[in-house]
Every structure is written in C-alpha cells, then in structure tokens.
C-alpha cells in the first residue's frame, strides 16, 4: 500500500489535485491553514467568477464538497506543516497541532496573498473610507449588500477603478503583472453597471491585459453592452474635496492633467506571493524565485516540479494565476505525484 499524498493548501489548485488523486484511488491528506476549504474565492467572498459568470460559492463550493465528501481525502483545517523530512516515497510531516503524517509525495498549493493597498498611500486607501479594493467590491456583490459607499451607505453615481494597484510597480518591488485583475475589473464594472444602471464606471489603465478570449467577453462587452469607459492614465493621487474623492493624473491621450470627482474609487489589487513563502521555503526546502513565489524548475518536462524531488507545486503559489490555470496545474501536479508514490525508486533514479 502506497503512502498518501500530502496537499498543502485547500484552494482551487489543491482541491483539483486532491480530486484528481482520489479519482485514481490514491489516498490524500490535505492541510489547510484557515478553518475552511476553498482558497481565495471562498475565503475572500468573490462574487461571479471569470470566465464562467458562476457564483464563486457555487463553482468553488462544488469543488470543496466533492473533496470533503471523499473517503480517500483526510482534511486537517486550521493548521500548517511545521516540520517536513524524508525522501520521495517516504516523507514525514509534523503539523503545528502536533499530528504526524506520512506521505509518499507532497503538493504545495499554498496560493497567494492579496496586495495590501495601504502600501500605496497616495491612492487614498486607509485614508478615505470610499477608497476600496476589488475584493471589497466582490464581497459587496456576493453578500447581496450591494455596492454602497462605506462612508455613508449611499449608492455611488460614479466609480473609478484603478488598475495595477500593487502590480507592475518597481517602486514597491512588484514588477509582475497579476494577470487577472484587468479582466476581474471589467467583470466588476459590468456587475456595478448592472446593479446600478445610473452609476458610471471609469477604468484607469496603463495597458489592458484581458488576454485571450477575455478580450471579447470582458473588454468589449464592458464597453459595448455596459458603456464602461477606459481612460489611459496612471493616477498620481486620490484626494478629497471634502465631499467627493478627487482622482488626479494625466489623461495621456489628450495630454491634459485631470482632476475628476468620484464617489468611490476601487483598487484593482494584485496577487502578491503568499506571505508565508519564506517559512514554506524553509520547512519544505524549496527555492523561491526572484519575485518570492515558489520556483518551478522546469516548464516543459514536468510542469509541477520544485527543486526538491517529491515536492510539487501548483497554482498561484508559483506566480499570478487564474482559477482555471490553477486547476489545470493542480491536476498536472496530481499526475506527477501519483507517479512518484507508485514508482518512487524509478522516479528518483531518473
């Protein structure tokens, strides 16, 4: 009998790996830091997802119950891995709660951390209550509370979404593009326009990266069907005139400074490396890349490998990823891990 596969992190990537392994008859132990499974879409209460338009609680919730209801998956909530030793086919992990676990292989699906907008004070988050993040708007929509200005509960007449907050910014050491926030912002803009038809939504961008098929369904649909407006400007600062927020910058296409009043400003926050990554790197003996995400050693031969044999990685632990890509990577990692637990010697010798 082979030892189970240890999966660390119960987000979309971990859930997909667990389901794939269990479907192949492989035992799985899942360790999740928070007190429930589902990862960012569930823990942060996302609304309708890109690209399916399904509610996160239904789509990801379905992945959660599929795993929770599976006898081959043993779930440990509210704890993390403290110690990790051994070799492929024969790892030993000790959890913070003291429990010892044996594993043939491990998959790290520890995900990302939302960028904290307080680190960009010029854009007013933390100073003005009506400056919020995409995560907060997702929660307003998913909770059914509706989009309202936190300061006084009024429905906004005009909303600005600022892209690339915490991404593509050398000043704060974040040079990557978070990949999904353009599309998520277009999606949110459409949802705001749908729920508040009199509210105009403006998106301030440097580039629009609604890649692949998102171009039509999000970038163009948001403009053609929902009349969302896109303005090429990197905002310099968000202030207030006492009544409304003032968004200042340069409209680069007309070469003119702008200073436009808004009721609500939304930061399209990026995907930082998981704040735990230094610890994860030390405990599991895996390298991080120069940005601070878990390093993948090979792109083509074995999708999910880290530098340590028998320890695999998938999803946004490796860099900004969408849910679908995280799911695909979770399945790829499951395949690699399955090979490892069934043929540990062969794999190790290779």
């Amino acid at each position, binding site marked *: 009998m082979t030892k189970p596969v240890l999966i660390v992190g119960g987000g979309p990537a971990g859930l997909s790996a667990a389901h794939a392994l269990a479907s192949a008859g492989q035992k799985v132990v899942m360790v999740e830091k928070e007190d429930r499974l589902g990862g960012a879409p569930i823990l942060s209460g996302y609304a309708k997802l890109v690209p399916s338009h399904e509610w996160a609680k239904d789509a990801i919730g379905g992945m959660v119950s599929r795993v929770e209801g599976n006898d081959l998956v043993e779930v440990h909530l509210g704890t993390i891995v403290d110690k990790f030793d051994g070799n492929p086919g024969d790892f030993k992990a000790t959890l913070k709660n003291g429990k010892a676990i044996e594993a043939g292989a491990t998959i790290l699906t520890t995900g990302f951390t939302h960028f904290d907008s307080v680190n960009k004070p010029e854009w007013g988050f933390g100073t003005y209550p009506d400056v919020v993040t995409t995560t907060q708007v997702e929660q307003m929509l998913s909770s059914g509370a509706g989009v309202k200005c936190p300061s006084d509960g009024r429905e906004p007449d*005009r909303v600005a979404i600022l892209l690339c907050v915490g991404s593509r910014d050398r000043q704060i050491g974040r040079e990557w593009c978070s990949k999904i926030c353009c599309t998520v912002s277009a999606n949110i803009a459409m949802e705001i326009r749908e729920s508040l038809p009199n509210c*105009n939504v*403006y998106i301030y961008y440097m580039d629009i990266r609604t890649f692949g098929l998102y171009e039509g369904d999000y970038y*163009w649909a948001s*403009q*053609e069907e929902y*009349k969302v*407006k896109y*303005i090429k400007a990197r905002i310099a600062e968000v202030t207030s005139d006492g009544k409304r927020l003032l968004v*200042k910058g340069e*409209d680069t*296409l*007309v*070469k*003119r*400074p*702008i*200073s*436009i*009043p808004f009721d609500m400003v939304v930061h399209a926050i990026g995907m930082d490396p998981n704040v735990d990554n230094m610890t994860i790197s030390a405990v599991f003996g895996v390298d991080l890349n120069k940005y601070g995400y878990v390093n993948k050693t090979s792109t083509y031969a074995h999708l999910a490998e880290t530098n340590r044999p028998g320890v695999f990685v998938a999803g946004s632990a490796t860099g900004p990823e969408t849910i679908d890509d995280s799911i695909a990577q979770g399945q790829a990692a499951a395949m690699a891990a399955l090979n490892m637990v069934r043929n540990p010697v062969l794999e190790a010798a290779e």
Partner: protein
Amino acid sequence: MPIHEKSLIRPENLVEHDELVIDGVDVSGHWSTFIETRAISDYNEDLQDEIGALGGGENIHRCWQCGSCTNACTVNAINPDFNPRYWIYLIRLGMESELVRDKDIIWQCVSCNKCTYACPRDVNPEGVMKATAHWLEMKGHTEKKPSMIFDEAFSEQVFDTGKIEDGLVLRQFFQRTGQPLTQPWLVTLVTGLIKRFPVFYLMRLGLATVFRPRTKGWSRAKAAINEYVEEVEAANRKALKLDAKGAE
C-alpha cells in the same frame, strides 16, 4: 523641444494683469503672466449618448483608439489638427470643452469614407464626424455651414414637389447665404446655355421655372417624408435634451 508644455499652455489660459503690485513689487504687464488651471475637472457623461443618438454616430462606443481613421483621412493629410480618432476619444469620455474648441475644424470632413474602410472596429468615423458636426450645430456652437444651407434648399424642394428645379435651388442658396445672384460664373453658365440650347428646351426650362411642376401623386409621398423628417428631428432634439422645435 518641450512639446508637452507648449501644447498645454494655450493662449486663453495665459492671464496678464495690466496693473498689479504683489508685496510692494510692481509686476504689471507681462511680469505678471499667470497660467490658469489646465486640468480637466469633469466629464460630461451624456456626450457619447447624445452624439451616438444622431445619425451616423451609432457605433462610436466601439472605438479602440487605434488611429487608423486619422491615418487614412484625406483632410488630416492637409491639416494635422483634423483628427477623428482624437475627437472620438473626447466624445466617449465626455470632454465637451475640448471638443468644442475644435468646432471650426470638425465640419471640414469631406465624407470620402476612407476612414470607414480603414476602421477595424466598424465605428463608421465618417458618420461620427457628421453626427458631431450636427451636434455642434444643434447645440448652437456652430453656425449653419453653406453646404448645410444648400442641402436644405435642395431637400425642401424635393420634399415639396418631388422634383428639383436647379435655378430655384441656386436662387434660394444665394439669397439665404446673402450672396448676389449675379455671380460671374453663373452669368457665364446661363448665357452659354441660352446660346447653345435648342429653343424647345429653353421654353420647357422657362415653363418649369414659372409653374414648378410636381411629380404625379406626390402629396402622399410628401406627407410620409415630412412625417419621417419631423420624427427624426424630434428624436434628435429629445436626445440632446433640447426643447421642441421652434421653442428655443
């Protein structure tokens, strides 16, 4: 050269005080040159909808600012300030004052439709130019252009009789634009005609001028056309939130 600064400071934004003393220092005249605020301070959120509601402007919201229209444009080749791409941007975002600044260039579109064939988003920029010129006129930013006056004289006659009597169109056009009828080129044309035309045709021309014949059974067509024109005009005025015609 700092192109940025030069284009940002427009003559109307420069203010000088003939007599000004600050802290006991006389800074009269160009010593006291101030630059008024250049920042755009608001969007007119109705602008795109208004121009989009006028004939030709329907697809303006599709524009992705690629610039193909401007690049293809006949007029732009002669006057670089004629820039359909730029105006479409201003309209979409509601930068009304910026748009109105160019009111004396926008109508110069020659309707060659080169832009229409170049546009990858099927915006129909030529139509947008037409709608924009129309908007500027309806909002009272521009006078009626001579070509518009000509079109009116022309179409009024067609609507009225189902026919065109060129002489009348010309007479009305010159009258409405305050020009003398004795234009040298016209005199030459008419005397040339009289010399060369067979008498029979000249008589018919003369009769047509005096009696203004109508197309047979025109009254029903006329009613339908007038109704349609009124409908469109009323819809246009409504879209621009103007009072009903005549109540201005």
